[in-house]
């Protein structure tokens, strides 16, 4: 804001009324000022977003290794390798499982929670805040709690099941691929429910109460009222929350990094963790190609989300 000279003296008020001041000086006109306001943010975003995006594409076309200055342009070789790489195939499958299988659970359970919370009751705001914790607490930290809940020896879940006589041996939550994927999905659903709940709750407040009452007077059951009054009102917000959730889950890192690091035997990788692991082997170009492979999918979800938001206008 130092661009504007501080010494500009206001003209006499009479003059100000005669001439609309918006026309007189360039910094009082909307357009130049608007572009000026974009500059600081744009600089940061170009330097640390647009530039790395371009650099990432370039790196993914090279055989750059960490710590070596020399590297060659190798075209699409990194991507061709990924097409043959079984771990990468598994990664793609896992990411879709992880991104899509969890969504219906988060949606239904989140909707349920929203409907429960939408009632009037004592301490409602404190209870609401408490139930949001899974979504608020740093994921790396809450994942540590899950890491212990899934521990092969110390898991209290196994202990309870053993006490109830349902199992004789501890559950090996993270020990094989299928169990580990299921465990990751469980932790993901747990973290995602509050987001769906709070988004849908915001939508529920917009449900026209008169319509509800009118329908009730006409003898509509609560299910009928839910289907024909509530659901249409919250449809958009449900779609938006779902797309957000898919994008975030697709690009997740922390939860998987803390719980399995992509193991056992590379069986639970998603794009983020596999790229991180590849980077750990110093293969920077290859790692960049793994991370960028997620881009087309993200672009599709983003386009859908944008269309949804715009159709609202």
């Amino acid at each position, binding site marked *: 804001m130092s661009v504007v000279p501080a010494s500009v003296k206001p003209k006499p008020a009479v003059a100000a009324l005669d001439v609309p001041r918006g026309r007189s000086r360039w910094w009082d006109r909307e*357009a130049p000022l608007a572009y000026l306001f974009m500059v600081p943010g744009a600089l940061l975003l170009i330097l640390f977003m647009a530039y790395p995006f371009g650099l990432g594409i370039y790196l993914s076309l090279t055989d750059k290794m960490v710590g070596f200055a020399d590297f060659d342009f190798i075209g699409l070789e990194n991507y061709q390798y990924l097409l043959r790489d079984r771990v990468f195939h598994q990664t793609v499958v896992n990411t879709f499982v992880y991104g899509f299988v969890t969504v219906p659970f988060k949606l239904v359970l989140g909707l349920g929670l929203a409907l429960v919370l939408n009632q009037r009751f004592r301490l409602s705001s404190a209870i609401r805040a408490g139930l949001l914790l899974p979504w608020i607490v740093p994921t790396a930290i809450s994942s540590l709690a899950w890491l212990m809940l899934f521990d092969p020896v110390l898991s209290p879940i196994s202990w309870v099941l053993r006490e109830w006589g349902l199992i004789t041996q501890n559950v090996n939550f993270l020990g094989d691929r299928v169990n580990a994927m299921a465990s990751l999905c469980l932790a993901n659903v747990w973290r995602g429910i509050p987001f769906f709940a709070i988004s849908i709750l915001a939508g529920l407040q917009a449900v026209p109460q008169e319509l509800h009452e009118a329908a009730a007077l006409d003898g509509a059951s609560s299910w009928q009222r839910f289907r024909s009054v509530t659901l249409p009102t919250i449809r958009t917000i449900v779609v938006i929350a779902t797309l957000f959730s898919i994008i975030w889950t697709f690009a997740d890192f922390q939860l998987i990094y803390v719980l399995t690091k992509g193991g056992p035997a590379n069986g639970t990788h998603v794009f983020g963790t596999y790229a991180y692991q590849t980077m750990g082997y110093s293969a920077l170009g290859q790692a960049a190609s793994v991370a960028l492979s997620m881009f087309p999918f993200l672009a599709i979800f983003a386009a859908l989300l944008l269309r949804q938001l715009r159709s609202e206008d």
Partner: protein
Amino acid sequence: MVGENTLSNRMLKLWVPLALYAAFLLFPFAWMLIVSLKPDELLLDTRLNPFAIVNPTLANYRRLIFESPFPRWILNTLVVTLGATVISLACSILIGYALGRFRFRGGNTIGVLIFLLYLVPPTLLFIPLSQIVSNFGLYNQYAALILTYPTFLIPFASWLLMGYFRTISRELEDAALVDGATRIQAMWRVVLPLALPGVLSAAIFCFTLGWNEFLYALVFMGSGEMKTVPVGVVSDFIRADVHFWGLLMAAGIAGSVPVAIAYAFLVDNYVSGLTAGATKG
């Protein structure tokens, strides 16, 4: 509709489901708390009821504060998060103001672009960004995160503030302009004070998003003393197969309390911020 508000109906529709949800959603935190209060030697005895706290102790918290690098991680996280929040807010107020109140060519396109940038996840960019960070000589420096966190904070905060600025009446601003104020003065003295609640919630969201960030912190500032809380806890309290569970859980509780308190009050605004574009003011 007799009976709609009877006690049993209320139990069935409200308290029972609420209790079930609470049990599921809060169980991991309760577990963290239990483990953090247990003495180490009882923790590993699998014959004991794992939920019983026999000799509760604060030893883990004492170790965390006096004998571990945890306080240093807190300091690191504070420096990084506050720095990134200030930078992001300054940039976002300007962007949000311009997008929310000025009519100019390309305004809508820029708004859409900002929204799309918000969707770009750190996992997409961390590899080339690590090169840039080390080329600039920023590796393991506070600046590495202070300058990169705004990439996800600015889009979010601009989007939120844009919606907020739109809700403030134009007439007040116009009145100030007629009275001889420049646009900057009108913005600074008239609109911004009215937008203070929005700015405050943007600040708190930036703070919590920064506090929770993991990947950039792990890759750009993940060694030695410079770790942030989430990275430090995950990488220093878990060594190969040795898990310092008591310490881990104590750190988990201590590391989430500040952000939980801040967020709890503002979460409704967060959602309305997300959907600000959907319900134009």
